[in-house]
């Protein structure tokens, strides 16, 4: 039996809606609100049922317009590498500071995507981020935590 990816996604959404509905029932409401016409869990319960109904309909009914995706032409390597870089960016942004982590993220992303023009890679990373930071921190007075620049004495 061949199940289309869209039906698999709908099936996953059906399971997700089931979990959502279960947790909607677990929401603790005030005792005096328990039998009210509407309380904190009413709307989520309706949503859980709606999710179950729509996903079940998609799984059960025949597909009138199936999505054709050629999985062989997709660039998994670059996409996964970019996602990993974003996660690393998220991990380092508070520890290494905004300037260093953002600049390194940009340099590595350009390289991952195949860029080799070093002059542009440099211009659109460290000086670009410095300018952007000046705009935010210096002109607009938006606080940016940066332990690295504080250590160097550039930021107060």
């Amino acid at each position, binding site marked *: 039996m061949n199940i289309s990816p*869209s039906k698999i996604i709908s099936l996953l959404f059906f399971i997700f809606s089931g979990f959502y509905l279960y947790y909607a029932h677990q929401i603790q409401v005030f005792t005096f609100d328990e039998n009210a016409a509407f309380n904190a869990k009413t709307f989520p319960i309706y949503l859980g049922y709606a*999710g179950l109904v*729509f996903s079940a309909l998609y799984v059960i009914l025949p597909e009138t317009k199936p999505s054709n995706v050629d999985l062989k032409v997709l*660039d998994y390597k670059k996409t996964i590498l970019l996602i990993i870089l974003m996660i690393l960016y998220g991990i380092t*942004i508070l520890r290494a500071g905004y300037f260093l982590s953002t600049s390194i993220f940009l340099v590595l992303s350009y390289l991952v*995507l195949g860029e080799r023009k070093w002059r542009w890679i440099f211009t659109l990373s460290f000086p670009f981020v410095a300018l952007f930071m000046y705009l935010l921190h210096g002109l607009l007075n938006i606080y940016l935590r940066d332990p690295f620049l504080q250590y160097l004495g550039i930021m107060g």
Partner: protein
Amino acid sequence: MIEGILIGLETAFSLKNLMMVMIGCFSGTIIGMLPGLGPMTAIALMIPITYGFEPSTGLILMAGVYYGAVFGGSTSSILINAPGIPGTVATSFDGYPMAQQGKAGKALAIAAYSSFAGGTIAAIFLLIAAPSLSKISLAFRSPDYFGLMILGLTAVSAFSAKGHFLKAMMMVVLGLMLASVGQDTLSDIPRFTFQNMNLSDGISFVLVVMATFAMSEALTIIFKANDPARVTKQISLSELGSIKLDKIETKKMVTTIPRSSVLGFIIGVLPGAGSTIASFLAYGMERNFVNDEEKQKFGKGSVNGLAAPETANNAACSGSFVPLLTLGIPGSGTTAVMLGALLGFGIQPGPRLYQTNPEIFWSVIMSMYIGMVILLILNLPLIPYIARVLATPRTFLIPLILFFSVTGIYLMSFNNFDIYLMIGIAVTATILRLYDFPMPPLILAFVLGGLMEENLRRSLLISDGSWTFLWDRPLTFIIMLTIITIVGWQVYKSFFQKKL
């Protein structure tokens, strides 16, 4: 009223305030163009700056930023399919395909003319009818709002899903589910937070919109980089095309603009409806007005399909000022930020604003029109330069989009959790988009989730838990009939396609 208009003109035409409109329009356009950054962020950034100004000057600056950001959002929708705000999502349906066909310049010109015309017509409506129009929105009750929101969501699902109605409805439910995360607005009871403090305030709109549009679009471009069908669609500067419109295109716009302006303005007046519903409804309405040949072009670069939402979202921006200025109720998220700024100035908007601060009321209305003129003068000549964003190599553009997205979220929360959540939503959205699960219904549902729950709560409490409120009032009944018609039409279409 004449006296008020003169006061407004005098205030708006002072050198300082003219400068503020120009600065607001320009900075709003630039900020609005950045994927994920919309008018709400732009106005929020302006609040600390405006505290040193007189209230009217501060409000004029923010109004300029608002209009500029809406136009800027349209630009990024057309050029890179990354709407800065939900109000410009419908613009991308036909604007982006047009850019892919090498008509980016033309698409931007249509957007500029439509925005100007829609904004102008709505500003005139606002000027003449502001006091009495508030009565229309007063006639709407909670059941009507609830029905109107379902209508908006159903219409979006029907028109943006391109034959995948059930997939769109699943996205609507997912959007509403995401909106339900966090403390319940009335009782403060935590829902779906799993004892995580980062989720107690709910998921930020900016996070969801940047993840599902900007970030997901960037990942999709890389993911499908080797797809031959995708490669041929890559936009090059040589394919930019002229910004001049021919007679047929102008004729199409002339018929579209008036009806979309009226619809946009009326929807904008309704608190909570705003430019998003206006643009989607205008898109849907226009699709029903045009002939079958033009209907086939919708979603593939139709002039009507681009002009309608662009006109409506600008008209709705003007309309959303009506409840803010006359009732003190914000008509959209952006005007809610402006309400906060007004309260900061010590001004309470409402019916008494006419008497207590007439210069504020009228100068804002006057500045809106001046802002429209400035936007057209500023943006039309700049279109070829704005469109040069197209020439930016993908190797630089994609990391920069990701950088702006992460920065936008980091500046709002200063924690890693939101960044991880955004990456998670972006990856999920990329997979969903791959299999034609549309994102616009998810975004609209996410924006409307809180309001929808609030109106359902009121309706059910008033009717003592009975669902008869859906047909008790004639207005609600008509809205529900429209919803049933749309759903019925979708079912019929699926059945008809199956037969073929």
